[in-house]
């Protein structure tokens, strides 16, 4: 810590000056990771988050469903993925059947 005298507009001020070390931070590149895509997009369609086989459909056409309700299960690589609706709504159409093979982002269920 050093003390300097500084004159401002004819008035002298004592100023304490502290030496501060400059630091250099390395910004790490963020790697893009393959994360499963959002399940519900493109209106109120419920989409497959992964490719696999539909092993359970837990809703019926005309049924009113709540946000968070499990609507179907897709299996891939022995991973059973419970798909929940991101919306409240009424099931207008079920686009797949039990045993169907689906691709990532295929429409599973259409809501009104």
């Amino acid at each position, binding site marked *: 810590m050093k003390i300097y005298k500084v004159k401002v507009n004819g008035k002298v001020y004592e100023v304490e000056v502290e030496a501060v070390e400059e630091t250099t931070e390395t910004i790490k590149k963020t790697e893009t990771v393959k994360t499963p895509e959002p399940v519900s997009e493109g209106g109120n369609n419920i989409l497959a988050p992964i490719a696999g086989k539909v092993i359970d459909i837990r809703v019926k056409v005309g049924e009113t469903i709540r946000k968070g309700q499990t609507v179907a299960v897709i299996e891939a690589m022995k991973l059973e993925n*419970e798909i929940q609706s991101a919306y409240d709504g009424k099931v207008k159409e079920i686009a797949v059947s039990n045993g169907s093979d689906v691709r990532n982002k295929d429409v599973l269920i259409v809501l009104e």
Partner: protein
Amino acid sequence: MIKEIHFQTIDSTNSYLKRNYRELDDLCFISAEQQSAGRGRQQRSWDSESGQNLLFSVLIKEKELIGHYEALSIVSAYAILKVLQRYGIDELGIKWPNDVYAGHKKICGILLESVSADQFDCLIIGIGLNVNQIRFSGSYLTEPISMKQLLGKDIKIPELKNEIYEELLADFRKVKEKEDLYPQIAAYDELKGKTVIAEIGGHQEKVYVKGIARDYSLQVTDGNETLSLRSGEVSFHEKGEKI
């Protein structure tokens, strides 16, 4: 530090995590002496004598790790296999996608489950390892075997459990860091070179297994073309039993 919640009895450690994952920490383990509704793939029951086996699930919430779910499935089997090896068990294999076999009998089953709403919210890896049980009643798709049957002695489950937790966490880190575990895993491919019955496009077909591929799918051929299996059943043709 390992985070674990242990239950005397629970319906299923996977089901507990599906109900409670929002409030629980990433990489939290749930174990139980007994499961009243333990299950395997597609709601098949998984029976276990109370306190005789190792039954647990681990919760993964970190999105970066969840993105590697295909690797985590088979890497979990590989982690168990390495611990069994250290206990002196040999003739170990991984039957795609993630069962652990000892002497061509099933010693460990793994079931992955996930919950997706707007995105993959969590990944749950449930593991059942036959430890000290020596009688298996009921009908099984694949003949079971336990560590005690193979080693002729009781195994201390708490020590075994800690060793497995550590091994899993270490291998999960390797997956996250993109370490290549494929060559080690492929060396334990139980199905490679065998003729099996596989479910392809809703039909059962006899195919020859070329082996586990780098993306951890199963490469099979019907003699004309090579197919890459990512789901469905694969059963041994010789015995005609589903696995």
